């Protein structure tokens, strides 16, 4: 049911020293009904501010918020009918599990039978039905966040807002809860907006990722779209790992890197370009080939499911992920070896050289 539209939204703060800070800069965004959306970006990119503005907890400086085409910019948060899940859970410490979940329905003045029914349903949904009398402090972090989720769902709102809901949890529990979250949202046909700085979390949980930086939206699209076709050095670097090579254009499908030719499938438009290759797309050769880029293995990391190679090329580090057998590593690609590597033209990402390359690579 709910479709969220954000029009020309800007939020400016005044810092304690009196400096003006623009947290959100003229953002336009349409969030489709029944989709699982994530607002992804480094800390300070404005994603949490945007979520809180949607919830009504922060007032925007200018711009509009529409729920299903209806302007809710001036509607109080308690009247927006939303569900909000907090990073630090914010489950009421003085109320037991049951009363935490029944709080929303109670303050909305629903009839008693309905309150009881919804509370029971939602406790069951998150797996807390057997502990209605427990106080939050008796629950583990994961349980507390389940409680926070049940509490938000009990209002029967169709719009679920989640502010870094998994980042205060142990990594493994967080990774497990991801799937449950997505399952619940899909089963109940909700629209979810989930804020996170964790790209892996965003990739696994979302239908749609909204990548933000410096108060602006960089790119939106499905996880595949953002990973396969990032629109900038920043996007390529933030979602997954990427190696970058500063190149000069030779022809429409060829570029040169320190005298070595790199072929691309897509057309090269600009003169000065950055080519990006994901580490898993790099192929290593133990026989040195003068036509290929060559370097020295400076580090081999065993990651369990694969090996990470760090290759020193002209002073810069290139990463390659390889699923080699132990024996091959011992025999063929050893620490300190000189090697060459290559990649398919269709795996090459092309970006126009940004003004400040180092700034593009910063993750904070």
């Amino acid at each position: 049911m709910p479709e969220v539209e954000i029009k020309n939204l800007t939020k400016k703060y005044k810092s304690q020293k009196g400096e003006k800070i623009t947290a959100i800069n003229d953002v336009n965004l349409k969030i489709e009904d029944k989709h699982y959306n994530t607002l992804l970006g480094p800390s300070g990119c404005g994603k949490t501010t945007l979520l809180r503005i949607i919830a009504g907890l922060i007032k925007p400086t200018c711009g509009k918020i529409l729920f299903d085409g209806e302007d809710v910019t001036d509607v109080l948060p308690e009247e927006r009918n939303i569900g909000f899940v907090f990073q630090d859970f914010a489950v009421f410490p003085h109320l037991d599990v049951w009363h935490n979940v029944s709080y929303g329905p109670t303050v909305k003045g629903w009839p008693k039978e309905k309150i009881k029914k919804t509370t029971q349903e939602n406790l069951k949904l998150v797996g807390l039905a057997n502990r209605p009398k427990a106080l939050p402090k008796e629950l583990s972090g994961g349980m507390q966040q389940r409680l926070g989720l049940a509490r938000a769902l009990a209002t029967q709102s169709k719009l679920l807002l989640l502010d870094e809901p998994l980042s205060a949890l142990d990594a493994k529990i967080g990774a497990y809860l991801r799937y449950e979250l997505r399952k619940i949202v899909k089963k109940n046909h909700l629209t979810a907006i989930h804020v996170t700085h964790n790209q892996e979390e965003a990739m696994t949980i979302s239908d749609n990722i909204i990548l933000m930086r410096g108060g602006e939206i960089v790119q939106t699209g499905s996880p595949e779209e953002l990973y396969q076709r990032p629109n900038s050095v920043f996007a390529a670097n933030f979602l997954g790992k990427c190696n970058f090579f500063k190149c000069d254009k030779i022809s429409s499908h060829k570029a040169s890197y320190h005298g070595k030719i790199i072929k691309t499938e897509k057309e090269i438009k600009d003169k000065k370009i950055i080519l990006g290759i994901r580490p898993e797309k790099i192929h290593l050769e133990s026989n040195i080939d003068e036509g290929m880029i060559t370097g020295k293995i400076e580090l081999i990391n065993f990651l369990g499911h694969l090996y990470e190679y760090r290759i020193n090329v002209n002073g810069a580090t290139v990463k390659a992920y390889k699923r080699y057998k132990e024996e091959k590593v011992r025999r063929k690609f050893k620490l300190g070896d000189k090697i060459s590597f290559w990649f398919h033209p269709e795996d090459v990402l092309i970006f126009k050289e940004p003004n400040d390359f180092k700034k593009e690579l910063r993750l904070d």
Partner: protein
Amino acid sequence: MRYFKNNLGNLFFSSAVIFFAAVIFLPAVYILTYFFKTEIFVTKEIVKSIILSFEIGLIVTFIDLIFGLPLAWSLVRSKSRFIKWLDSLIDLSLVMPTAALGFSVYLYWGSKFGLARLLGLEGGIFSKGPMLIILLHVVFTLPYMARSIAAAIAQINLTYEQAALTLGANPFTIFRTISLPLFKNGVITGSILSFTRSLSETGATMMVAGAFTTAPVLIIGLKEAGQIPQAAAVSVILILSAIIILFLAKLLLKEKTINLEKVYPVFEKSLLNLKAIKNIAVALFFVFVVFLPTIFIVFFNLTNFYFFLNSILFKSLIISFAIAFLVTLVNLFFSIPLAYLIARNRYRMGKLLDSLSEVVLLVPTSALGLSLVLFWRQFLNQEILILILTHLSFSFPLLVKPLAAAFKDIPLSLEEASYSLGTSGKEMFIKILLPLIKPAIIAGSIMAFMRSLSETGATLAVTGKIKTIPILIVEFVERGEFNQAAFACVVLFIIAFAFLIILKHNKFSKTS
């Protein structure tokens, strides 16, 4: 235990414990032995005065709650400039010497020079009696209530209230069902402080009591009439009943939880319209009932400078200051190790020592004075020495409390880090801990100093010939020499105000 294995360290701590037990605690509660020693004559007068004291204490606490709660809420949550001003004025009646405060409140409400003149009336608005006592007690107990609640509110994580908002609760419902339960303990602390303070106040109350006697005033009267057994009896009853009532109150309030099943969304939402009225009512109450009566003395009469220079006032000032200075110094020396013991729970004595020092705070000052006289007369007959020992006793807990809180805030790992770098226990204490608790030392010292300077009830119970400033003020008022009393009060007021500014400044330096 493992850190202070050397004899010097043990001596340091055990001397503090012995000092506390022998000089502070035992003399303060010595009077309770009279419970067994003498036959207690419970006269009608005694019963009446104790009932009056409790009635006043309850009413005062109730008024403090009604106005202190919204006041505390505004202090923490409001961003308006008026509130910022209020914040720096609210403690004024705390540092104001009680005798001066009592006189000021009397002039404001009770005399024809005060509010009456403003309203064009012939006499005062209220004559001396329970009404005026209540008004006076509200003035000096409201800061305890507001500060205790404000401290608790400041600790509430704002996201709880935001969470309730997103669940559809209106602000009033949130206040009642989420915020209030979370700062409940601040309300309990504030109520207990206000109630005990009202119950035990002597000096200021004497100024406005008239023909009515509260229990602490009765103790002074009986003592001055030489009826020591009766005075002791009142003290014993007052202390015991206070302890019992506080114990019961703590027990009851802790159990009480809100009923969440009963929420009235529409009605509670309509209450929000009263917000403006509430703010105005609280502001008016503070200005006209607390602030103006406190400082009214300044407007009264200031033209007695000649009298100041060659009179007993000057002598009294010197005596008062000398005692306050000496007492603060001695207490500081012993309270630091004791506070450390409490904070770190060394030798597992923390809880015990903490509650014992609370008992000393609870004992009404006139009863405390009487207890000390009765105790020390067995060994000493120097009035000045007994006076100093009395002042040591009631100001000691005022130092221990903030110091213990400050020690608690220092993570133990800091001490361990210092030991791992090879520091000795003594060095660690002086070079690491003391600098860190400096703000608390300053705050505690000023509180103890001011309390010693302004204490009336206990001093009256002890002295015959020696006149500290508060005693002098009481005498002036009793003799009807209002101008001289007012002048003495103004002198004390200016000193109090100066200290308040230092205290405030200290607070700021602590937070930044």
